[in-house]
């Protein structure tokens, strides 16, 4: 059921692909779903919570307890393999393994990100911050296409 709830900002991914559903518990009639936010200020989280409620109600589970936990903090490592493939097909470069997670070293060079269109590694970071909190802006120097990278977190 949760596979049908999309991330409103990256509709290629379901909340399950994204790795934010941490636990589903059932007790008699009741269901509890535990989710964790991607970024603290991500406005999609409120919409996601609402969509989960609506989806479950649609399937005959009106009594849902939706719990949000912060720790352990979400990481892009929790994104499913299928999710990564869906992202690439959608035109967004998927996150690298978390060794590449941001650290405060100055002008630290990231491992090269592959262009989701032509697969070239000859790409340049334009900005660590993109159209949503979870993405960075890149440009491919071979095919000339700007693209987004779902950054490690």
């Amino acid at each position: 059921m949760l596979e049908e709830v999309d991330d409103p900002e990256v509709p290629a991914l379901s909340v399950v692909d994204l790795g934010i559903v941490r636990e589903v518990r059932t007790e008699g009639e009741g269901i509890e779903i535990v989710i964790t936010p991607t970024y603290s200020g991500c406005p999609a989280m409120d919409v996601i919570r609402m969509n989960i409620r609506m989806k479950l109600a649609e399937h005959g589970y009106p009594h849902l307890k939706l719990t949000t936990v912060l720790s352990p903090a979400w990481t892009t490592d929790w994104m499913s393999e299928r999710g990564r493939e869906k992202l690439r097909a959608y035109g967004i470069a998927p996150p690298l393994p978390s060794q590449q997670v941001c650290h405060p070293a100055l002008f630290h060079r990231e491992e090269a990100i592959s262009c989701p269109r032509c697969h070239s590694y000859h790409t340049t970071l334009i900005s660590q911050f993109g159209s949503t909190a979870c993405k960075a802006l890149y440009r491919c120097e071979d095919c000339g296409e700007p693209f987004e990278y779902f950054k490690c977190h």
Partner: protein
Amino acid sequence: MGYPAHIEYTLHLADNALILGHRNSEWTGHGPILEQDIALSNIALDLIGQARYLYQYAARMIDSDVTEDTLAYGRDAWDFRNCLLVEQENGDWGKTVLRQFLFSAWQYFFYGRLQQSQDRDLAAIAEKSLKEVTYHLRWGSEWVIRLGDGTKESHARMERALDQLWKFTGELFVPAAYERALSVAGVAVDLHSIRSSWEERVAEVLGEAQLTEGAGDTWMQNGGKEGRHTEHLGYLLAEMQFLQRTYPGCEW
């Protein structure tokens, strides 16, 4: 207003994040180039998100009709517990990025410690926030270097910004009464323990940026954590709180 120390402390952290987030959001639509407008708006969003967790937690502790919204929109300047640094006016881009850098460096080491707090809610918020702040710190550091070690004009502006902001950095390491009590209990971060890490990072970046650190004998301003603010906070709140003050409880 006078809440118990634990609540005051949570509000102090929430107010820091909200006020700086709001200041940054003033740049939305006005950034020097689109990518950096977006970057600063992203940082604002992260900070306001962190503030929301903290206000929600404070509201749960207060346990009445208080919500995250009444805390953000319903208190006056003297109730706010944020440091003076975060309420300072944006000035030019250089001053904004310098303020962000100085504060992100503090938040980075601060949240690093707060993860070990005896208070599990604060520790979880710190763990979540630290990941975001790491990006902010890197962004701020690189901008300070780019402008400090840039053109004659950008260098002069950064020197001026440093001159304007340095006097507000001392407060980051002076505990308020509510902090002293809680740090003994292992809830609050002992500010003394992060001071040298902050100084090291700041010296490294300012050095790389060819900027001279503020003089050691600078008179450090104080009082924000106890509700004694610079005149800038009142103007900021007047704008930020306008809608909720005029139409209480309004939603759209």
